[in-house]
C-alpha cells in the first residue's frame, strides 16, 4: 500500500482521539492494522497526534477536562489494539518511568490521575501509587523503578508538608540527584517548591507535562 493510504488511516486515528470517539476507535484501529499501517507509527503519529491537539486546546482554555480525559481513554483503547503487533526491539521512544501519588493523609486524586493519564499518552511509563501514599513508599518505588520523575500531589496545606519529608528521605538514600521531583495540587506554589528543594511545581497537568519534558531534555 502507498503512503497516501497510511496517511488516511493516521488521520482517522487522530480524528477519533480528537473527537473522543470511544465507540469506534477499535474498528478504526483494526482497519489500520489490516491495511498494514505500522503499529508504532499508528500510536505515535496517529493516536498521540490527536492527544497533542486536544492537549494544546486544553492549555489554551478551549477544551474541557472531561474531553482531555476521554481523548486519553480513546487513545488507551487504540493503543491496546496496536500494542501486540509492535515488533520486539522497536524503538518506542520511551521517556522513562514516572512514579506518582497523593501524599500521606490526603485522598484527593483527580489532578494526580490526570497527570498520570497525560504522562502515559506522552510516552512515559506511569506507576501510580494512588492516594494516601506513605513517605517511605514514594522513596522505595522511586529507587526500585529507577524513576526519572517523582510526582507528588496534595490538596491540603496540612498534608503538603509530607513532601519535605520525602525529599529528605530521598537525600538520605542518596538518590535525590537521580530523580526530578515535581509537586502539584492547589496549595502548592512555585515559591514553595523552590523553598523545599523540589525541581518543579505545576498548576495543571498540561503544564506538568511540558515542565517534565523540558527538565529531562536539559539533563
Amino acid at each position, binding site marked *: 500500500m502507498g503512503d497516501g493510504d497510511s496517511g488516511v488511516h493516521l488521520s482517522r486515528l487522530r480524528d477519533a482521539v480528537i473527537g473522543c470517539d470511544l465507540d469506534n476507535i477499535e474498528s478504526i484501529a483494526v482497519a489500520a492494522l489490516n491495511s498494514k499501517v505500522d503499529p508504532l507509527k499508528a500510536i505515535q503519529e496517529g493516536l498521540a497526534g490527536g492527544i497533542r491537539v486536544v492537549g494544546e486546546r486544553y492549555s489554551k482554555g*478551549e477544551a*474541557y*477536562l*472531561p474531553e482531555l480525559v476521554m481523548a486519553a481513554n480513546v487513545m488507551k483503547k487504540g493503543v491496546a489494539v496496536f500494542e501486540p503487533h509492535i515488533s520486539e526491539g522497536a524503538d518506542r521512544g520511551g521517556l522513562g518511568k514516572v512514579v506518582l501519588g497523593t501524599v500521606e493523609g490526603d485522598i484527593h486524586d*483527580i489532578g494526580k490521575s490526570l497527570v498520570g493519564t497525560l504522562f502515559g499518552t506522552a510516552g512515559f511509563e506511569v506507576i501510580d501509587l494512588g492516594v494516601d501514599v506513605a513517605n517511605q513508599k514514594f522513596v522505595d518505588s522511586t529507587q526500585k523503578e529507577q524513576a526519572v520523575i517523582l510526582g507528588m500531589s496534595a490538596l491540603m496545606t496540612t498534608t503538603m508538608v509530607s513532601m519535605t519529608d520525602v525529599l529528605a528521605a530521598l537525600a538520605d538514600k542518596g538518590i535525590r540527584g537521580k530523580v526530578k521531583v515535581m509537586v502539584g495540587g492547589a496549595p502548592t*506554589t512555585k515559591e514553595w517548591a523552590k523553598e523545599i528543594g523540589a525541581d518543579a511545581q505545576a498548576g*495543571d497537568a498540561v503544564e506538568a507535562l511540558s515542565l517534565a519534558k523540558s527538565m529531562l531534555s536539559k539533563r
Partner: protein
Amino acid sequence: MRPCPSRSQCYQRGEITTRIGFDTERKIKLKVMTKEEEDAIHWASLNLLWKTGMRIYSKESLEILKANGADVDFSQKLARIPEHLVHEGLKRFPKAFDLCGRIKANDVKLDGRHVYFSTDATGVATYDLETGERRGSNKEDVKKVAILTDYLPGVAVFNPSVTPLEVPPHSHTLHELEVGLNYTEKHTMVEAVFIKDEAEVEIKMASLVTGGTKELRRRPIISSIMCCIFPLTLDGGAMDASLTFAKAGVPVHLMSMPQAGTTAPITLAADIAINNAEILGANAILQLAAPGAPVLYSTVSSPMDLKTGGYGGGGRPETALMNSAGVQMSKRYGMPSSPGSMGSMAKMTGPQIGHEHTLVPLTVALVGGDLLNGIGMLEGSKVLSFEQMMIDHEIATAVLRLVAGFSVNDETLSLSMIDRVGPRGNFLQEPHTYKHMKEIWDPTLSDLRPYDVWKASGAETMQQVARKKAKEILAKHTPVPLDSGISKQLRGMVSDAEKKPFPKGTSENW
C-alpha cells in the same frame, strides 16, 4: 435549551464553547405580585385611563379614540379611554410572534417560553476601543456594535447603542438602521422615531431588504420603540410614527419609563399602575387603527436619585421590582415583553455596574421577560463601552443559563452509572460527563485559573480581557453582507433623507 443553527455553526467552528445562549428556554419562574395585587394594578390602570385620562398629542390617535367611543376633548388633547376599548385592544394583539432576523436562524421567538438579550439605545458618547478616551459617538461605533452583536451568541437583537453625531440630527435613526441592516443578520430595533415621514422611510428601507412590504409584515426584521416620557401622556409624533409602523406590521415596543418621584409617584404600586395604563392606552389606539398589530410590553423604570433629582439609573432593587412587575402584567395580558434590564449610572466598568447589570436582568428573566435590553451601556444608557458590552454578554449568558434550570430524568439522574462508579469513585472519565459537560456554563471572560497561572499569563483584569476579545472579534468577524445593489439603494435613501429635515410631527401643527 436548544441551540439555534447559527449558534451551532459557531460552535462547530470552535468559536464558542457553550451551547447556552441564543435562544434559551426559560424554566424557573418567579412572581413579584400576588394575583390579587395584579388585579388591583389592572383595575387601577383602567381607573386612570377612564377617570384621569391620557394627554395625547397625536390628532390621528384622538380621532381614532373618538370614533370608537372614547371621551375626547380636542382642545385639551385629553382622552378618557373606557374599559371596553382597553379590553378590545387586549383582544387584538398577537400573543406570540417573531422579531425576525435577516436570516431565519436569528429569529427571536416571542412565545413566552424563550428569553433573549439585546443591546441598548441610544447614547451619545463612546469609550474609544483604541484610545480608551470618552468621546462623542460616531457611525463607526454603531457599526462595531452591529458586528459584535452579529457575532456574540448571547445577544439576539441589535439596538444601535449610540447615535452618529456626525450626521444631520434629523437623519440619525436612518443611519443607525442602515448600519443594522448592513452589518448584522440579527433583528434591528430602531430608536424611537418622533416623525411619521421618518417612520415611512424606515419601513421602505426594511422592505427593500425583505423584498417588499408584504414580506416585511410576514417577517418583520425591524421593530420600533414608542417611548412614553411624561406620565399618562403620549407624544404626537411618536404616536403618529407608531401608527405608521403598526399599520405596516412592524412590531412596536410600547415603552413606559416612569421615574418614581418625578414622572410618577414615589411608591412602586402607583408607578406600575401608571406604566400599565400608558401601555394599555397606547395599545388600544394601535389595535383600533391596525387590528392585530404586533406590540411589546416594555417597562423601563427607575426611581429618581432622591438626593440630586437626577436619573436614578437602572440598576437598583426597585428597578428590578418595577420592571419585573411590568413583565408580570404583560404575562397577564399575554403580551410579549421587552423590559428594561441592564442599566446603570456607573461611570466606568467595574463593581457597581457588575452587580447592577446582574441584579435587574436576572430578576426580570426569572419573572418571564422575553427580550431583555441594555447590553453595553454606562451612565444611564448614555455612554457605550465595548468592554462593558463583552462583560454584559458574559452576564447575559450566565442569566440565560440560570433561567434554563435543569432537567430531572433517568439520563440526568444516571443512577446506574453512579452505582457502577461507586462510593469514593470519580466521574471525570465517564462518557456521561463528556456527553453533558457543555451544559455547564462556560465563562469566556471570568478567570477561574489558579493565581500562579493567571499571574504568569499577564495578570489581566476582566476589563483588559474584555477589550482584547472585542478587538479580536472585530478583527476577524465579517457579517454576511447585504446584496450590494440593496446596500447601494439603502445608501441612496439615507442620503436623500439627509438633505432636508422631515416636516414636523402633528404635535406642533395643531
